[in-house]
């Protein structure tokens, strides 16, 4: 019960932070990305503020043996910067620059009644599903020895 409350509260805080910070207004996001125009740098403060709070708290939290309601803290085995990471981030940025929405603000905007979010979010979920499908089929191929020999 208490664990449910934490996840719910975390999502709630996240949305309120996005909304107060200005991330749910695509015009503000585009003004932040428009460095050659009338540049509004303030959204950098949202990211800066989030890191300033999370970085030290994270260190304190990781002193614990384990999370409150889970067995382990996350590990990050992948250290290399692969082509997929850079290519994916590059495509992500193009979409972000076209619409002014990234995933969190778009989802948060659904319940505000913003029509744009109701177009953007289904397309975003479709894009996610396609990418997951592609990477899953690649993984199957990589694990299939006959494919590996051919490659």
């Amino acid at each position, binding site marked *: 019960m208490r664990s449910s409350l934490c996840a719910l509260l975390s999502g709630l805080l996240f949305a309120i932070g*996005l*909304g107060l910070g200005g991330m749910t207004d695509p015009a503000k996001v585009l003004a932040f990305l428009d460095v050659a125009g009338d540049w509004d740098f*303030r959204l950098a403060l949202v990211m800066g503020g989030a890191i300033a709070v999370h970085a030290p708290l*994270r260190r304190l939290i990781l002193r614990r043996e384990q999370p409150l309601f889970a067995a382990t803290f996350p590990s990050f085995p992948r250290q290399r910067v692969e082509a997929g990471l850079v290519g994916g981030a*590059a*495509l992500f940025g193009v979409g972000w620059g076209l619409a002014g929405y990234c995933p969190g603000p778009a989802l948060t905007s659904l319940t505000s009644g913003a029509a744009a979010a109701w177009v953007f979010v289904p*397309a*975003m979920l479709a894009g996610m599903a396609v990418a997951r499908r592609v990477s899953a089929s690649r993984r199957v191929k990589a694990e299939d020895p006959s494919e590996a020999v051919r490659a």
Partner: protein
Amino acid sequence: MSSPFVLPLLGGALIGLSASLLLLAHGRVAGISGVVGALLGPVRGDVAWRILFLGGLLTGGLLLAWLHPGGFPAPVALDVGRASLLGGAGLLVGFGSQLGSGCTSGHGVCGISRGSVRSIVATLTFMATGVLTVFLVRHVL
């Protein structure tokens, strides 16, 4: 500190607090594209917290629309051109977030908070292509 900087900083602080709470409670990274993306291929026992987090996001949107409506754009009618642009952008954001293992929150906030080189590279990359896209759309095309 004058008012135009207070809300962005406060909003950011709340996001940092949210990410910390999720790490403390569930040992999870508050990257929205990861939280939501994994619901598309759900794994038993790893669904409830994701749905609850998403429910919190949507509830937050409702609260904001009520208490801070200025945080959202004024409603406008969508024409076909605008809707196609939003649809194409959504596809790119969704596809890119999974291929690139994260988005503004997962890489930009959580990843940078732990000093991950991958996240720093990803954040610089999507910032750069975002800036370039806006530049082309607003100042060249």
